[in-house]
């Protein structure tokens, strides 16, 4: 295939006709579908994975489960699972969304568990010793301290769902993936390009939103040391000496 001049790729993206709101299959319509699928899926996965992760993390029973589900989840081929469910159950939005939910559980579960385990034990000891009851210890102490890791799990799940939903267009799901898949099948590469650009931008936007949520929700006292370092005055931190540029 000969390379097509760059400018043609943008044709679909900049064609006003494709941006009509009322149209089924128009860009805004697909965009909203994609956003909806992503957010709803992550919300449902979170609803399942967060409590389980909190429980396993707090009691430390079933740690084996949390860690291995996390690893196993990563090794499952997402496209394979989508094909499987559709072959078993037939084309439909619900089966596909169920697969998306199932795939989003491992990262959230693993990150939540890791977050709670990373909490400084002496703070938990102090909380219990002061007279907090177990739910209070979990929600007033462990969760706020585990929040950075928990949120990073949610963010990574969101990106994963956004990407897998794109692929799921191949098995009939709506959303921006449609532009990619339909475009590929009829060799309209400007359509494909439009889909790719839009979904990439959406993913980046969702991730930035996640970062903003993290800034808003995580206590300044718990931020990663790197961030805090730029804020605190106090003790001078020596730069890592070997990489500070020594002329020898």
């Amino acid at each position: 295939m000969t390379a097509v001049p760059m400018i043609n790729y943008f044709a679909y993206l900049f064609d006003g006709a494709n941006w009509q709101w009322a149209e089924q299959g128009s860009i805004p319509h697909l965009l909203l579908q994609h956003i909806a699928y992503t957010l709803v899926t992550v919300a449902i996965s979170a609803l399942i994975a967060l409590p389980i992760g909190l429980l396993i993390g707090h009691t430390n029973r079933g740690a084996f489960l949390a860690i291995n589900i996390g690893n196993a989840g990563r090794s499952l081929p997402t496209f394979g699972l989508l094909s499987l469910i559709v072959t078993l159950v037939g084309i439909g939005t619900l089966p596909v969304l169920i697969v998306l939910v199932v795939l989003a559980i491992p990262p959230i579960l693993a990150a939540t568990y890791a977050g709670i385990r990373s909490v400084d034990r002496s703070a938990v000891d102090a909380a219990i010793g002061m007279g907090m009851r177990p739910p209070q210890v979990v929600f007033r102490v462990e969760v706020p301290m585990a929040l950075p890791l928990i949120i990073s799990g949610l963010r990574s799940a969101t990106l994963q769902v956004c990407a897998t939903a794109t692929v799921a267009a191949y098995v009939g799901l709506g959303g921006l993936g449609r532009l990619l898949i339909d475009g590929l099948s009829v060799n309209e590469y400007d359509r494909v390009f439009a889909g790719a650009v839009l979904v990439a931008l959406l993913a980046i936007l969702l991730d930035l939103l996640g970062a903003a949520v993290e800034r808003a929700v995580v206590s300044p006292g718990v931020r990663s040391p790197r961030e805090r370092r730029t804020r605190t005055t106090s003790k001078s931190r020596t730069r890592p000496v070997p990489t500070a540029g020594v002329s020898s």
Partner: protein
Amino acid sequence: MIEYAVQNRSTILEALVQHIWLSLLPVVFGAVLALPIGYLAVRYRWLYQPVVNTGGVLYSIPSLALFVVLPAILGTGVLSPLNVVVALTIYTMALLTRTVADALTSVQGEATRAAYALGYRPLRQLVGVELPMALPVMLAGLRVATVANISLVSVGALVGVGGLGALFTRGLQLDFIEPILIGIILSVLLAAVCDLGIVLVQRWLTPWARLEAR
């Protein structure tokens, strides 16, 4: 299912072999590129944030999108395997650069200051002291990148270059479940083997880690 596997073993084998080099090449390229960039991001503090941010942005991009946009940028055909390899290399780099940078930062401390005081030159110290200490963290990142790549290669089937993903598309087209199951099983096995392989390499390369008291 065994019947299907036996009957179609050449196709399956071909798919598996393609899958292996499509997923492992990017890991190697990505890792090799990530090391110097990660090092620079630590050596020059101001580079860290931009590098991490760029990596974050690149990693956010859905794989399929990257597979189809790269041809335009690289000038290759849409159906060329190069797209998949380059795309996965980009992902691996995006992931591992941060891992390398964070790992190198985390090993700075008494041992490195001692090395400096003993008279190590920067490069020798990097290779002889810091990298070995940073290995566990970096290898953990490598495991994640490898397993992720193995899963992503299948998506390449949508642009005709999918390794085991070809089994999925075939299963969908013919409405057969066997190729799909075989594809999933092989993909998971491949991921498990590679993961174990890296763990063994880690054990071999870091014998001191096993000797910790308690």
